[in-house]
């Protein structure tokens, strides 16, 4: 009996002790997970803050060499097939290049979770004043506000007015407080302005490559405020029927608000100039222009660079640590692209803007006929071609530096060419004249077709790297030229496959600041009637042209209206059109063109049943000479742009969460 009692007592005692341990250890369950850095660890050291910022830099809305036009930014949330980003580039819808394209691009972009992290930093960092000096804290806050402005810019340029959130919201707050309505478009742009102004005044003077400094903020200011100025200047030309969004100022601005934003552009550009930035140049202007994109020009022309990972021995598939530029713009070949090849093809609409020898001239009847060349190389070997064009494109006969391959391109032959340019130009793939005289080939890749034509033996029909009617739209040329900009001239054979390029992307460079400044000056001159501003604009345009090796432009005193040529809905004076064309020449393939045409509200007029044309070199057999024609690319892909997307529709999923968001009009 006593034994059992003892056993029971021990049992209860044992249970009581166990229970006691459990209860007391409840306090120790409130632990921080060991694998995650908390705010205290990160914010109390410069290294920690850099780590915190690193993630924010990583997700910035930069239209870089991985940007996929209708899938958006390569980001952690947007996976798979980044390699296709190049052929689905905004360059296609901007008319710069032929390629694939789905839809009008720019899908939903609503990165408030990233903005929250920035707001968190801005609110918390002053608490660490014991560790960081006041100047250091202001530098950090300046950098945070630059980053915040960058995120907001990505939204405002798509949607117009958006909810402005500059504090960390408490998730436990009542729903009405959290459902922030949209601010007006004007206020949204001013919010970006205020953040960038603070950044310009407080960020560091210099930074390592890949990080931003106060001049990067100023460069972003010139780009963002130019966007705002254009929107204010041209929004009303669209005549959108006012609805709730326009009436509340959430979408669109008025012309009388444009001058303020253009002025901000000019001030920020001046700030950058005073920081000592300049255009990179060299004795060999063609090479110097390629160096702008392949060399580290920190403190010279580079204002902000996005770097990619070190190239290793294997490609990291679907990783945005690398991009696929070389593989997607060079043709397949030894030492050239090893995957896919040439899927983004420069279009005549862009090529024709450069200073180069004329390919057509008037004959004695006043009709345009193709100019006869002794060789296709005469085009780019001429003094008349600006070195910048040779640094931007590979024309037929140029040599690619890393592989030493000659870019052999020929579109076909004409047995004779008795007619005019009009005879050989069609809004179609072919016509009776072309059928009668033109010979093209279906040669496979790697084959050069040689035929006897009208008794003449050994006539070469196509080039090794194009053009052929077979082979689809990748691998060889579709338009008679390749893109050279951003191609790595020192690439090894292994660095030209998918995900094997790491050439850094120049997000902001001084040339863009000059172009922004010139455009703002000229537009301000038009708005205020101030001729001196218009003249000053061309000082900067001619600096860009001097570096490019192109002739200086003399402003026309009584410019004519050239808007009708692109079916624009407003008149465009020819000096202004020259400034816009200079942007196209300088910033080709840097993902500006689509957004520029969009903010000028001419994208829908230009892109109405638009077909890309090429610079097709043909051999004329009975003359023994070469000509260039501008045939449509063989895939015959027509483009249109829905003008409703000048202000994209607010994402439906966001309206479901926040019914206070008013939809944009015009959709």
């Amino acid at each position: 009996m006593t034994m059992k009692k003892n056993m029971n007592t021990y049992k209860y005692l044992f249970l009581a002790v166990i229970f006691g341990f459990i209860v007391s250890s409840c306090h120790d369950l409130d632990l921080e997970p060991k694998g995650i850095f908390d705010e205290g660890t990160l914010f109390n050291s410069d290294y920690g803050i850099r780590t915190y910022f690193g993630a924010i830099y990583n997700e910035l809305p930069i239209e870089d060499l991985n940007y996929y036009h209708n899938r958006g930014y390569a980001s952690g949330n947007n996976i798979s097939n980044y390699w296709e980003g190049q052929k689905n580039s905004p360059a296609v819808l901007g008319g710069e290049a032929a390629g694939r394209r789905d839809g009008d691009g720019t899908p939903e972009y609503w990165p408030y979770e990233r903005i929250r992290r920035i707001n968190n930093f801005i609110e918390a960092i002053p608490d660490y004043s014991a560790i960081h000096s006041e100047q250091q804290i202001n530098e950090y806050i300046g950098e945070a506000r630059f980053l915040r402005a960058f995120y907001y810019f990505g939204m405002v340029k798509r949607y117009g007015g958006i909810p402005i959130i500059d504090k960390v919201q408490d998730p436990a707050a009542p729903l009405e407080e959290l459902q922030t309505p949209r601010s007006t478009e004007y206020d949204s742009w001013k919010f970006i302005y205020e953040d960038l102004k603070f950044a310009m005044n407080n960020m560091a003077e210099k930074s390592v490559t890949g990080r931003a400094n106060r001049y990067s903020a100023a460069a972003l200011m010139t780009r963002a405020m130019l966007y705002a100025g254009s929107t204010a200047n041209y929004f009303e030309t669209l005549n959108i029927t006012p609805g709730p969004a326009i009436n509340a100022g959430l979408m669109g601005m008025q012309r009388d608000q444009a001058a303020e934003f253009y002025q901000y552009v000019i001030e920020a550009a001046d700030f950058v100039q005073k920081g000592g930035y300049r255009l990179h140049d060299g004795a060999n202007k063609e090479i110097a222009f390629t160096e702008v994109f392949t060399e580290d020009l920190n403190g010279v022309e580079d204002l902000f660079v996005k770097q990619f990972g070190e190239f290793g021995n294997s490609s990291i598939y679907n990783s945005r640590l690398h991009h696929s530029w070389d593989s997607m713009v060079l043709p397949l070949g030894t030492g050239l692209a090893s995957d896919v090849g040439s899927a983004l093809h420069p279009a005549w609409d862009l090529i024709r803007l450069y200073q180069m020898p004329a390919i057509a001239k008037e004959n004695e009847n006043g009709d345009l006929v193709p100019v006869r060349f002794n060789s296709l190389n005469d085009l780019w070997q001429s003094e008349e071609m600006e070195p910048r064009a040779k640094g931007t494109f590979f024309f037929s006969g140029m040599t690619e530096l890393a592989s030493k391959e000659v870019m052999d391109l020929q579109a076909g032959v004409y047995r004779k060419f008795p007619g005019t340019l009009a005879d050989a130009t069609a809004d179609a793939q072919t016509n009776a004249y072309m059928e009668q005289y033109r010979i093209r080939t279906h040669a496979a890749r790697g084959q050069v077709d040689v035929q006897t034509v009208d008794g003449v033996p050994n006539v070469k029909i196509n080039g090794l790297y194009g053009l052929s009617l077979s082979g689809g739209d990748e691998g060889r040329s579709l338009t008679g030229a390749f893109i050279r900009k951003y191609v790595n001239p020192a690439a090894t054979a292994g660095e030209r496959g998918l995900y094997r390029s790491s050439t850094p992307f120049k997000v902001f460079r001084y040339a863009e600041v000059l172009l922004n400044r010139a455009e703002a000056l000229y537009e301000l001159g038009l708005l205020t009637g101030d001729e001196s501003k218009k003249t000053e604009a061309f000082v900067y345009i001619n600096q860009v042209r001097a570096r490019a090796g192109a002739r200086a432009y003399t402003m026309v005193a009584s410019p004519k209206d050239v808007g009708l040529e692109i079916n624009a809905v407003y008149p465009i004076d020819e000096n202004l059109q020259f400034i816009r064309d200079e942007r196209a020449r300088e910033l080709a393939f840097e993902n500006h063109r689509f957004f520029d045409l969009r903010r000028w509200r001419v994208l829908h007029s230009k892109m109405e049943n638009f077909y890309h044309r090429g610079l097709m070199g043909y051999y004329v057999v009975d003359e023994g000479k070469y000509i260039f024609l501008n045939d449509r690319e063989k895939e015959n892909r027509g483009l249109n742009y829905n003008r409703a997307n000048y202000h994209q529709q607010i994402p439906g999923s966001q309206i479901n969460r926040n019914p206070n968001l008013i939809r944009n009009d015009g959709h």
Partner: protein
Amino acid sequence: MKMKNLLYSLLTVGFLLCATSCMEIDNFDAPDARVSGRLIDKTTGQNFITDHGDTHIRIWEMSFSENPAPQGIPVQFDGTYNNERLFAGTYDMLPQNGPYWPADTIRGVRIGRSGATQNFEVTPYLHITDFEATLEGTMLTLSCRLSAPFKEMTINGVTVPIPNVLEVRPFLSLTQYCGAANYIGEYWTNDYRVNLRRPWDRIDTNGDGVSEETYKITIPVKKGYTYNVRMGANVNYTDQKFNYSEVKRIVVPND
């Protein structure tokens, strides 16, 4: 043994619970409220001249939410619209996207299963008048003049002028439908259009409401085909859709 039975019992109960949730039937009714009507040209009293889907009646189900996503009922070739698959409720309705001056939203339309009829009156930007189609061999010459019922309108107290006229284009079709939703693509090129892109005052210079010029477009047609043709002109408003002439039937003889 006891444990085994307990285990099996638990598993069976669990399985039955899952099974019952599979057999729930979606017992919501399909939407079946109906609304139909005509889009009427206010200046003529006839149905608005349009093509399939060029314009919509935009509707908002206000009894469902205060900020609902809009839906659209396309207006058909004959100017009528009809939708028999709406949820019953109270709607706001507005003709939208079409080549007419902005209209007013009609609020509080009750749409129920017994059906509702709602007509809308709108004023077109342009009328296409004096439409002629002349066939010579295989060349078809189309001509028309433009007239604007109003060259300006006061909307919400603001007087706005008619937007700039953009283009005049031909539309050819091999079916009974003809217009921007049904046309032979080969004719949609800059060679077969009149590019105006100017304000109405420079088209109608003497102010009588009709264009001074008669616009002619000559296009090649094929032997043995019967075409339906019409001409259209558009102005620079949000959607840049076309106002059309009537449809004419052209038979091209085989010899």
